[in-house]
């Protein structure tokens, strides 16, 4: 009865398709439940001279208006350094910052009332663009530098040098379920919170501080999210705290959900980056040295920006050995939404820097970009000369060469490159481009102490199994994968395992479900708990049969001791009547980690996940419109616990990444107001935007060389970075519009029709100026 390595359906699939799956806003509430909305700042940088909420109070249905002075405890929802008040205190730092809480009888009444405050501001020029933030030295930290060798000297001495700058836009998460929370007051000042969050423990912590109670007075429950992608790692704190505070003051259950425009206006997004590079190559296309300057706009509060910017630095090498490298990171404080976690967490931006360098070098060296890439790959696993990353971690598990070879073959890359060349010679209006890019992504939280997880497993006397752990389900299939691990441990069918909501009352002190680490961490913790219980059953049976525990085996759904075998239910019942505990906790801490983030040295990652993609595109040189014609993806998920779920991450991650790099554009005006705050203006991929030919596969050679759960590899974030091939393919098509003497032009993202048309004009030596 093998349940692991099987393509089981998502545990909630039937609930999804029948509308029975409950999200926070679907939970039945008692009569008298109140609804909340934030009143928002219209100014990006201002002193609040006066805030008149009387018109808000007079608005129909309003029960209460909560201002900073009314808060019973800490005014703080920051996940890091307490620099993010729930409600602004005197000054505002971005347009959309919450100023007050409206409590009303209905969601609509709360929304309407929230717009009725009379606010006087003394406005100052907000720092919005990179230049003004740099000029004002508006930073969260001194520039961080990770380096190895002497990069400046190596670049200077190299036979071929390339230099340039690429801009990479941010990205709105656009989880389909907007942020939502519900707080239900309990006796004795306790609070029960149901929230759409990737981080229940942090919500518990923030709610406790806001109420001035210890964490044991707050219970946070998360059954599922309608998408998270990093956007519910810290951004759900504000709603949960607001609900708890209002529930405390009114004594009624309080619910808050953001309208989509509010959601996009209030919450943080993916960090945008501007990356300058200088690199030197030898005549064979081997990189000799590279210097990166990574600038990122972190927004108004710190949130998780340091870790994001660190990860961008840690992926400045991607899959390439950089003998001499200097990576400078500039974390700019701007008057915008506080940029936050988003699938990839800085890694994708860091990789785009080096991928641009590879393309640029290929142009200068007149080599195929794929050849330049291959020549710079890290030495393969098992090689006698393993190489180190710029942060001195030895890359022991590199399989990118094998993956690339397989993908080149299966995608017909070489023939198609020739076809593209022929097409471009014959077609003046529509140009095509193709690119293969690799992914090497480090797995583990770089804040080392977060790499821990807990689980709670009960076996009831009828043999049914109750599973709980600290991971949250946001659609990624974590729950079913971990349930497969549990079912396997007991040798039972998957449907005997009851999956239950994440609950801080069951498993405490959990980390966010993030960093792709959900299955690795929680799978291991659950296995540990299950092993504890099976161990007790084994001891009991061993004692009954005067045998030893290692002679008792869970096999084919039975428990075998010598010649005798017991059904699982039978054994469980025996354990119960023999007063053996059938409940256990499990705990796991990732081994081998050792990281100094200030020095940029050590082993931040347990292992690397690999993958590669070939994308072919067409662009319209008259309008800049572009399409993905074909994508071939090959992703290393180790030994996949659930190939269907993992393949879903690969396909979905790629399309999400493709959206980021093509149609998804965030626009702020000079006053710092976000103009793209709804799907009417912010365009995530639609169905027809997926590649017309879409071949995705898990790499058949995958097997984690480290001892991870079932030898699998993390798969949540890495596939998003396969989409970097889209940007590089568009860049390739743009290059085809010029001639041999045209300079290389880095392709900025997102490659909207406007950016593509602009690039085409520039490559053709024409100006694209503001008329």
């Amino acid at each position, binding site marked *: 009865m093998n349940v692991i390595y099987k*393509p089981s*359906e*998502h545990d*909630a*699939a*039937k*609930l*999804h*398709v*029948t*509308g029975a*799956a409950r*999200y926070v806003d679907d939970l039945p509430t008692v009569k008298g439940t109140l609804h909340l909305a934030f009143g928002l700042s219209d100014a990006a940088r201002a002193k609040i001279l006066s805030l008149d909420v009387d018109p808000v109070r007079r608005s129909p249905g309003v029960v209460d208006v909560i201002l900073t002075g009314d808060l019973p405890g800490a005014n703080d929802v920051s996940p890091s350094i307490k620099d993010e008040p729930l409600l602004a205190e005197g000054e505002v730092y971005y347009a959309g910052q919450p100023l007050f809480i409206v409590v009303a009888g209905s969601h609509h009444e709360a929304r309407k009332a929230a*717009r009725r405050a009379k606010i006087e501001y003394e406005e100052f020029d907000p720092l919005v663009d990179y230049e003004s933030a740099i000029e004002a030295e508006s930073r969260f930290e001194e520039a961080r530098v990770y380096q190895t060798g002497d990069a400046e000297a190596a670049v200077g001495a190299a036979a071929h040098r390339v230099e340039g700058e690429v801009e990479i836009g941010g990205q709105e998460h*656009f*989880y*389909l*379920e907007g942020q939502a929370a519900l707080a239900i007051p309990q006796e004795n000042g306790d609070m029960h919170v149901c929230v759409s969050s990737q981080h229940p423990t942090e919500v518990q912590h923030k709610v406790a501080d806001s109420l001035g109670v210890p964490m044991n007075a707050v219970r946070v429950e998360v059954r*599922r999210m*309608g*998408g998270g992608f990093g956007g519910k790692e810290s951004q759900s704190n504000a709603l949960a705290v607001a609900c708890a505070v209002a529930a405390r003051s009114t004594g009624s259950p309080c619910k808050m959900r953001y309208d*989509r425009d509010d959601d996009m206006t209030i919450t943080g997004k993916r960090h945008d980056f501007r990356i300058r590079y200088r690199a030197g190559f030898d005549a064979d296309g081997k990189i000799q040295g590279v210097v990166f300057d990574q600038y990122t706009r972190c927004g108004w509060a710190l949130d998780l920006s340091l870790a994001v910017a660190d990860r961008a630095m840690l992926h400045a090498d991607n899959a390439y050995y950089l003998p001499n490298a200097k990576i400078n990171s500039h974390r700019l404080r701007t008057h915008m939404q506080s940029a936050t976690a988003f699938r990839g967490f800085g890694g994708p931006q860091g990789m785009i820097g080096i991928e641009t360098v590879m393309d640029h070098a290929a142009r200068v060296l007149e080599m195929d970009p794929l050849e330049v890439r291959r020549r710079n790959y890290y030495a393969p696993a098992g090689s006698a000369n393993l190489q180190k990353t710029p942060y001195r971690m030895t890359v022991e598990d590199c399989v990118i060469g094998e993956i690339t070879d397989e993908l080149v073959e299966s995608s017909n890359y070489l023939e198609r490159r020739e076809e593209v060349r022929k097409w471009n010679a014959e*077609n*003046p209006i*529509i140009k095509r481009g193709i690119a293969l890019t690799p992914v090497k992504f480090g797995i583990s939280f770089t804040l080392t102490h977060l790499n821990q997880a807990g689980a709670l497993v009960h076996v009831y006397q009828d043999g049914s199994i109750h599973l709980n752990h600290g991971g949250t389900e*946001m*659609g990624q299939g974590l729950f079913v994968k971990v349930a497969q691990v549990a079912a396997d441990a007991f040798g039972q069918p998957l449907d005997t395992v009851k999956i239950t909501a994440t609950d801080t009352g069951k498993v405490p002190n959990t980390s966010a479900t993030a960093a792709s680490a959900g299955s690795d961490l929680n799978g291991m913790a659950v296995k540990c708990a299950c092993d504890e219980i099976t161990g007790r059953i084994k001891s009991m049976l061993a004692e009954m049969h005067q045998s030893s525990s290692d002679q008792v085996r869970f096999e084919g759904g039975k428990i075998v001791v010598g010649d005798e075998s017991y059904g699982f239910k039978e054994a469980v019942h025996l354990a119960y009547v023999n007063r053996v505990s059938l409940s256990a906790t499990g705990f796991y801490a990732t081994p081998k980690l050792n990281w100094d983030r200030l020095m940029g040295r050590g082993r931040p990652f347990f292992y690397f996940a690999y993958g590669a993609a070939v994308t072919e595109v*067409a*662009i319209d040189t*008259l*309008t800049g*419109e572009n*399409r993905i*014609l074909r994508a071939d993806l090959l992703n290393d998920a180790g030994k996949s616990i659930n190939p269907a*779920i993992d393949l*879903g991450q690969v*396909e979905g991650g790629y*399309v*999400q990444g493709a959206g980021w790099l093509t149609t998804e*554009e965030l*626009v*702020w005006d*000079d006053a710092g*107001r976000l103009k*793209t705050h*709804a*799907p009417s203006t912010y365009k*995530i*991929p*639609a*169905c*027809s935007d*997926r590649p017309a*030919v*879409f071949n*995705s596969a898990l790499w058949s050679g995958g097997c984690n060389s480290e001892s991870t759960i079932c030898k699998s590899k993390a798969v949540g974030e890495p596939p998003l970075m396969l989409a970097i091939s889209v940007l590089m393919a568009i860049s390739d098509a743009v290059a085809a519009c010029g001639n041999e003497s045209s300079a290389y032009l880095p392709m900025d993202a997102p490659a*909207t*029709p406007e950016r593509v048309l*602009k690039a085409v004009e520039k490559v053709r030596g024409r100006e694209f100026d*503001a008329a």
Partner: protein
Amino acid sequence: MTKIRFRVNGREVSVDNAEPAATLLDWLREDQGLTGTKEGCNEGDCGACTVMVSRNDNGSMVREAVNSCLYFLPQMDGKDVRTVEGLAEPGGRLHPVQDEMIANHGSQCGFCTPGIVMSLTAAHAVGDEDHDDVLAGNLCRCTGYAPIVRAAESAARKPIPDWMRNEPPPQPRRSGVETPRFLVARDLDEFADWFEKNPEATVIGGATDVGLWVTKKLREIEKACFAAQVPELAQIEVGNSFIEVGAAVPLEHLRKFMADRHPSLSELLRRFGSVQIRNSATLGGNIANASPIGDSPPAMIALGARLKLRKGSGTRTVPVEDFFIGFKRQDRLPGEFIEKILIPVQDDHLKCYKLSKRLDQDISSVCGCFNIAVDDGVVASARIAFGGMASIPKRSPGAEAALLGRRLAPESIADAQEALIRDFSPMRVNKATTRASTAYRVLAARNLLMKFYSEAEPGRRATHVLDVKL
């Protein structure tokens, strides 16, 4: 009669004195506890709120996917709505679309899933297998759509469930519903008369634009008259000189009607919006809201269409281009409404180009429509109109004049390009426009003339990214 009546998942309900702008979505979720239908964006872009609305079309059942977030309760009168909770057979057996979504791993977070299931079910019922188009109005952020399309392909091979095949269409309603706050008219004279007496009322066709006033601008709709159930306003008639399109004809109806007559217009209407939007949105509504970026006005101007306006029993006609006075301002008197759009019967020379960040379900940055007839190599007539280039949809008389009487050739096209830019100068586009800069609009508009010319050349090369098939 102040009650609206309809069926919800087969159950008869009535609502007395409904709020005119209560959305179907809120009513389903908050009043009926049917929380399977989700709110994703509240503006008709994400499709999480998709439900299937059925109506009786001359005795036969017509089922259509619509966005329940932009559908007002009075629009339901005399119809059926089916939600995701109402798709399984009484014994619990799932609809084939639901089965295949499970089997093909078509859901991840599951939040978009009810809407996707409803869109696919409505398409399955009529055998529509253009899945990209069926799903253009259903955003999924998790799956990348591939498994959903696989599910749709598998479901297409399975029959429609018996309960759907046997379900009778709703009983047609003959008379209107009138309350102090709204009228659901079923007679043109009744509608004209009521609106003349209540000129302060908001005329509502499909509510896909007025819906946004309510859900996003939080405006109150004090009084409303609903036009889409007036038979005369919802039909297309072909006369000798004009195709007469009722103002409340849904864009999906018009798209199908135009497929053979003006295929480029039909494709423009496909890209105008998702299936859900096209099933609700009306041609009259798209013109009457006078948006500078509505897609139908440039096409209508290029076709030389006229509007038949009515106030009480009096009517007048105006050319579409004269109807637009300024940004969102129109030549329409209080109590006056668009009754019909009169499109001259003509040979097809129309080419429409819509530029947007995303191909489907996006608002145009530039929309150019060229109605240019060439006789013996010489341009015999030319009507050129653009959206997105000015505060109103506008003709380009200069470009037309540059082409008239001349051969289509690089020289005449170059002259037309210069004239086009002069016609639209100075262009004023908000610096922080979300769609495209002035520089892009100007260059792209020029280039569209070049594209038009390239397409007219014999033995042409690919001129659109969709021309490339691997």
